[in-house]
């Protein structure tokens, strides 16, 4: 119980640090932090289904695209404010996620097969986005810039920062709540052993369905945010590379852990950004380094940084306990 309270305190502290820190940083740093937080948010949403429920999915870019395109289309054609439109996008993403999850459950797909199917789905989705005139084809849909908070457009970058900071904090709370709820325990049970979970009375379909839809719906919000932050939504938002990045960043932090999705992007995005800016004429340096870090972390620590820290701390505690017992 004590640890749980400590986690909530940590979230509050992080938000305060974020709020105060933002007053003292330059515009370009702020931009890096916003992108990093955006990835944190996305990794957190992926972690619900990919980490906690153990359904290794590459379909997240599709959900992000659902969110970004739906809210933008509603805004451009019907004038509906994206603050409402993003819920429509989330609903669409949830419906799509439900279909994928149902297929997975009905066919009892092996893990690798499900990963490959979702990969295929994402590739097809990107091709469709590129082709469709209604969705703007290669160029995508441009959102006119403006300063209208009621339609999710801010002249001041800081406002986007506050929005994403709050979103990350809320996701953090959702993750913590899931962790400590019956539902979260059911998810972990399904991840660890689906048959055993079923034996002890977990409704596998309902649980994974809810988790997939939660993960997809929350992921779709990230699409709306990105569209407005960039003032454009184009097919690159749904590309496979996004899923790869989300998976790898979460893996570096620790898949399935509470703090891993926060740690991975906050470590990797600034490194990549810094190197890319430092070596402008050497395109690729940032990503090269980033890939090497990922391989090193995975080979040495296996489960990511957060799991490794937890393990080390636990073994140290055990050691000191056993020493105390000997005395």
């Amino acid at each position, binding site marked *: 119980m004590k640890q749980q309270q400590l986690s909530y305190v940590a979230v509050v502290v992080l938000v305060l640090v974020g709020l105060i820190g933002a007053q003292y940083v330059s515009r370009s740093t702020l931009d890096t932090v916003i992108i990093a937080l955006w990835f944190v948010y996305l990794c957190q949403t992926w972690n619900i289904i990919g980490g906690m429920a153990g359904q290794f999915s590459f379909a997240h870019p599709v959900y992000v695209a659902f969110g970004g395109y739906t809210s933008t289309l509603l805004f451009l054609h019907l004038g509906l404010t994206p603050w409402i439109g993003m819920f429509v996008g989330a609903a669409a993403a949830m419906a799509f996620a439900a279909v994928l999850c149902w297929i997975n459950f009905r066919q009892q797909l092996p893990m690798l097969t499900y*990963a490959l199917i979702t990969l295929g789905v994402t590739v097809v989705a990107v091709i469709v986005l590129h082709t469709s005139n209604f969705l703007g084809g290669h160029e995508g849909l441009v959102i006119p810039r403006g300063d209208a908070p009621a339609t999710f457009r801010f002249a001041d970058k800081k406002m986007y920062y506050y929005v994403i900071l709050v979103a990350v904090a809320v996701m953090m709370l959702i993750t913590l709540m899931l962790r400590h709820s019956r539902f979260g325990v059911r998810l972990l049970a399904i991840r660890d052993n689906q048959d055993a979970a079923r034996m002890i009375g977990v409704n596998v379909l309902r649980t994974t369905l809810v988790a997939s839809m939660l993960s997809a719906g929350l992921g779709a919000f990230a699409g709306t945010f990105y569209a407005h932050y960039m003032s454009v939504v184009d097919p690159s938002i749904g590309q496979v590379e996004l899923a790869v990045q989300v998976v790898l960043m979460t893996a570096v932090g620790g898949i399935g852990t509470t703090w891993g999705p926060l740690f991975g992007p906050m470590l990797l995005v600034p490194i990549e950004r810094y190197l890319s800016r430092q070596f402008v004429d050497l395109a690729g340096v940032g990503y*090269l380094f980033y*890939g090497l870090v990922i391989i090193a972390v995975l080979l040495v620590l296996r489960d990511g940084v957060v799991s490794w820290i937890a393990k080390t701390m636990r073994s140290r505690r055990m050691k000191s306990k056993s020493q105390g017992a000997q005395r």
Partner: protein
Amino acid sequence: MDTLLQIISQGLVLGGVYALMALALAIVYSVTHQLNFAHGDLMVVGMYLAFWGMHALGVDPYVAIVVIAPLMFIAGFLLFRIVFAPMLSAPHLVVIQVTLALSFIVQSALLLIFTSNFQTVHTVLSGKILRFGPVMLAAAPVLAFVASIVLALAAYYVIRHTEFGKRVLAVAEDRQAAALAGVNVVLVQASVFAAAVAVMGIAGPLVAPMMVLQPSAGLHLTLISFIVFILGGANNYLGTLVAGLIIGLSESLSSLYMRPPELAPAVPYLIFIVFLLVRPKGVLERAS
């Protein structure tokens, strides 16, 4: 009618190369039971090596294969020892992450060295045309097709009729039993992996003249290899060949008939998704 014949022959040529790529993947999978998500990127490395040899040293890509293939073999061997060997006992998902990161590294390194500009490779056969009755085919793809088939047959021969092949089959069948019978399992796995990378080093320069080189081309090639591998079935060389031809044909035929034509690249993926849904317990299940 001429266009149709043309398209069909193009599809077959493409399919032969796909089949070779998938075959390399399949043999590695049979001895390690892991999928390499950097597979296509290794082939792109082969293409860029050919490109570099042509530009910096003025060597024709076909000649360069003599150097590139052994180089890739050594690189593959080292790669296996450093990255793959420690990961073999890990769950599928960890290996997916590691090989995805590897693909990331390869792509960034290529981007760093060769920039993101599209590049093309020319060979002695560039612009040469072969005539078979009504069908006219560029010479380079025909050579790539013939070489792919020859390599596939050679792989089949090595596996079925040599001492080394017996060891490979033993490891594929049951690693523990093979180890107990005195087979050096890790050495077999490393050799097979290195050989597969070397095959990518042969296939890369062969197909480079037909392609536009780009550092991020690998992912598509990887996915196509997966598709062909899974459609064909594990340890089924003929199946892999047929699946490669089907995917190659479907890709070229859909570029002719698909409306709008931009959707054509989606067709292999759609075939793949439908196939996995109809036969989900396919080859991957048996292995795990």
